[in-house]
């Protein structure tokens, strides 16, 4: 039945669009929220992404619903990046830092998904973007550099800073939880 609905998408059928919007919107909203950090921007960019996806549906060739989800996700991520580029900003960094040691998260901390989500969301925008693209989406620094119009070293530098910040936030949260519930390591 979903295959039929995908076929109807090609005909720009409103009911098919509504079906897939409501099916995929939550996940896609989370993607936007993760990149943009606020609900209003995320809602706006989400709809822009869906509009683009439904308008260019003929570019989607195959893969069923999982393929459609992955394809829309790419569009949505791209819309988020375009939004960020429009809003600002030339990102500078001291590239020497890119070569410093990699930090690690606390190995024995195991938060829920929502907690990790919120911690990532709270990162500063520039670090958050690179972190999302590298760790969550799986892009290479070379690809990130092309997408964000920065150098690879800048991308590495932002990722490093994102990890350090995230680690600090995780440690802080872990400490708060342990203190609240009197848990010791």
């Amino acid at each position, binding site marked *: 039945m979903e295959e039929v609905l995908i076929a109807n998408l090609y005909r720009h059928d409103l009911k098919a669009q509504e079906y897939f*919007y409501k099916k995929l919107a939550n996940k896609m909203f989370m993607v936007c929220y*993760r990149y943009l950090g606020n609900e209003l921007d995320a809602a706006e960019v989400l*709809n822009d992404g869906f*509009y683009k996806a439904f308008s260019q549906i003929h570019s989607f060739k195959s893969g069923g619903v999982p393929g459609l989800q992955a394809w829309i996700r790419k569009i949505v991520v791209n819309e988020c990046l375009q939004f960020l580029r429009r809003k600002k900003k030339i990102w500078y960094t001291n590239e020497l830092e890119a070569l410093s040691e990699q930090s690690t998260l606390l190995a024995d901390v195991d938060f829920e*998904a929502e907690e*990790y989500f919120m911690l990532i969301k709270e990162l500063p925008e520039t670090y958050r973007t690179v972190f999302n693209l590298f760790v969550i989406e799986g892009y290479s620094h070379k690809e990130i550099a092309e997408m964000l119009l920065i150098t690879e070293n800048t991308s590495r530098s932002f990722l490093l800073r994102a990890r350090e910040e995230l680690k600090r936030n995780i440690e802080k949260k872990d400490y708060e939880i342990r203190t609240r519930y009197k848990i010791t390591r």
Partner: protein
Amino acid sequence: MKLEQDIKLRDKVFELDHLPKEIRWTADKGWNEYKRKNYQKRSQMVLIWSSIAAILIFGIFLVYNEYRNYPRILQFRSEKGTRDILLNDGNKIYLNGSTSISIDLNEYKVEVNGEAYFDLLTQREFKISSPHGSYTAKKCSFNLRSRLEEERAILSVTDGEVIIKSDKDDNLDLIVESNNDANIIPRIAIVKAPLIDKNYLSWKTGKLHFENTPLYMVFNKLKELNETNIEVSNSEMKYCRISGDFNTISSNEVIQKILEIFNYKVVNSDSLILIQGKGCEKI
């Protein structure tokens, strides 16, 4: 971060399928906003395209109306004097007296009864019909005398060529080139010959030119132009010849000249001019 930690974090984030508590947004709200924004866009586009279509249709209607009101068939009649017709495309038709013509501007069809000079400047082909036959012509100049009450038509081509259409077979069509004329006697014959009558356009130019022309031809021309009946007292006089240029087609002037040259006399009656004389000896 080591690769396995990245993967673990990624998986955790991906498995999150519900919205955080702080989020007020819902998929239903999102969809309503999506519809409102994009179908408003679509409605605007529909409105814009409808407006363009309406303007186009209105424009086509105006042009069609203009075209419909434009006269398709023109009809003219000249009584005594000549009449000049200049068409929009630059083609010209000059009517001699007592000539009626009907011109279909769309089909380029002309029906003529009388005498007309066609000065066709464009490549568009005219289909002409007269009491004595049908013709096709383009980018040429010619005179056609074809009166219903006369037994023959005379087609005289000044420039270009005119095709006399056969009513039996296209292969029997006859081409008349410039400086040629054709006498057309329906169902009997078409006689094509070099143009001898230099005065075939006198009705239009208002001039006459005779060059060693026998008097009988002069009298025929005057009869043709002015319906003047001229007779001679002695048949030998018909073959006397004159030369001269006249800036008029008036019979009086020509006759006066003849009288002077040959010392003839004129005896008028109601419908006939009788010229008396002896021979062709010039004074």
